[in-house]
């Protein structure tokens, strides 16, 4: 029946599919390796290579990780950093974005550019000054500098995204609310922000993932083991004389679950936010 098939073979969809499939495998391989390591005993890891299938399912690494009080501390510290820094940067970005979008003043465009330009500073440039600053303030080896720095570094992207989203909210809504007696704070919190859930969800996912996974700032600003966050905790678990690959693999998986949950929770809004403005209305 080949003759009935009149369309010529188009190689492009197939090519794109193959490329995407290869990329997906490349990205997933390390995760698969970590997953495999996490369910092997140290002996199995030492005997086989990374990709060998373990003879039996070994959950000891997970029980060891989840029962370790130090790991509980790492999790708690990470939550103590991530939640306030995420909420804080989004809140500050929303406030700044609202002003830039709806209450322009002389020089506000320049100021907006300066704020957004903050994104382009590599952390290495500000690392030493920040360390000296927080050292002078006596905040080294606490979680505060990590929270403050993450909050500050999040302001440019949050301001950019919120300003652009607020700009799409009709000005007439704000003017109506003003006529009806609302002040700017009420307009932002009761009218504009409830309309901005897609943008807020995008930022929540971005900021949460970024701060949760960060290694650099907690490494610089904290020293004691009981102040470390989860990403440094993974390294700390390696042991003094041997590398506990299995345990590290187990913790890596456990540590990535919160970001996964956050993404799944906000996914509905996230996709809407990514296509924001792509279609009319």
């Amino acid at each position, binding site marked *: 029946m080949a003759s009935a098939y009149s369309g010529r073979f188009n190689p492009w969809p197939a090519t794109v599919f193959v490329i995407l499939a290869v990329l997906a495998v490349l990205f997933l391989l390390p995760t698969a390796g970590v997953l495999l390591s996490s369910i092997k005993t140290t002996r199995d890891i030492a005997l086989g290579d990374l990709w060998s299938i373990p003879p039996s399912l070994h959950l000891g690494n997970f029980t060891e990780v989840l029962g370790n009080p130090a790991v509980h501390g790492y999790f708690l510290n990470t939550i103590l950093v991530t939640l306030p820094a995420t909420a804080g940067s989004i809140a500050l970005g929303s406030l700044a974005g609202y002003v830039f979008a709806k209450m322009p003043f002389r020089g506000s465009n320049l100021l907006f550019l300066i704020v957004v330009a903050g994104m382009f500073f590599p952390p290495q440039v500000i690392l030493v000054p920040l360390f000296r600053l927080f050292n002078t303030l006596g905040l080294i080896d606490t979680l505060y500098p990590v929270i403050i720095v993450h909050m500050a570094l999040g302001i440019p992207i949050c301001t950019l995204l919120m300003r652009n989203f607020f700009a799409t909210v009709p000005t007439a809504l704000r003017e*109506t609310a003003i006529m009806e007696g609302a002040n700017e704070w009420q307009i932002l919190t009761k*009218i504009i922000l409830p309309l901005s859930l897609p943008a807020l969800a995008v930022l929540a996912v971005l900021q949460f993932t970024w701060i949760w996974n960060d290694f650099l700032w907690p490494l610089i600003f904290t020293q004691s083991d009981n102040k470390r966050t989860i990403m440094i905790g993974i390294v700390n678990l390696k042991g003094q004389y041997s590398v506990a690959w299995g345990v590290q693999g187990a913790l890596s998986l456990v540590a990535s679950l919160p970001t996964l949950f956050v993404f799944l929770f906000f996914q509905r809004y996230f996709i809407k936010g990514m296509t924001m403005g792509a279609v009319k209305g």
Partner: protein
Amino acid sequence: MARVVLENVVKTYGSVRAVNDVSFTVEDGEFVALVGPSGCGKTTTLNLIAGLIPISGGDIHIGDRLVNDLDPKDRDIAMVFQNYALYPNKTVFKNLAFPLQMRKMPKAEIAAKVNEAARVLDIERLLQRKPRELSGGQQQRVALGRALVRDPRAFLMDEPLSNLDAKLRVQMRTELKRFHQELGATVIYVTHDQLEAVTMADKMAVMSGGNLQQYDSPKRVFDHPVNMFVAGFVGSPAMSLIPLQLDNVAGTLSLKSEAGWSLPLSEANAAKARNTSSRNVVLGARHSTVRLHTQAQAGAIPGVTYTVEPTGDVTFVQIDLGGAIVIVSLDPNIEIRADQPVWLEFDQERIHLFDGETERALRAS
């Protein structure tokens, strides 16, 4: 409800005068249309009354209060925007309740007021819906309701019908008029559509270039436009304006065209024409005041038909009078085609004369 008085109101942006020395009074319960082409300053004027932008000069009174420096919320006026500006995330009930919540009104009182407004506007069964689930007409009613619950001293409306399709627009025009009549509300209504202004308003303020050109009843504006701008803007199709030369032959005044024809003026029109020092006079004639003959007539001016536009009820014919185009409306049953010689007769009682230099209407002093 209250009267609204504008006295020499000015709004400048840098060196641009967006609103230039505008004065008019909207009496209590009157429906006034601010009308003019895009950029004429009508929406700016409305925003000045609302207090959304600060005034640069002059005074605005609402009721017996000078409101120049009052915040919008303290002016006690409601505004209906072009796109209705309903809060998309709130139900109709909450949209109506919002202005009352902002005034910290007790919940029971809010519910009573909202239900009353919903009853007046016949939107009771829509109260639990979100704005996106409403038709354009329903959205407009909700927007009116949100204005109504506040018992404002005046309603300001910024082109509330321009987002609707043609059929719905006519229907909502009728509803707005009923709304105004039943409530006896003071309404200031901005539109670029002179037909909306003529059909709905008690008075119309025709604006152009930031200046108020004429403020009068639609009938007076239609019958006695003060200048060529108003004459050309109000009425559809627009009034035909023909630039001519004033000619005095032995005391008899007539208007001469460059094409060679001339129109002797009646005594009343001659009296008007004597009031100008300019030789350039513009003759204005509405389509319904010009008679068309298909045969030569004594005193009628010869021309050639240019286009014929049948609309069903009436046929509009554009006629070339040697360079100047005149629009005439005809009974649709009259057979006429393009490029046909015709003769026009102007009704001297109903023509308008304008000074060719100042563009002002000539009046018998």
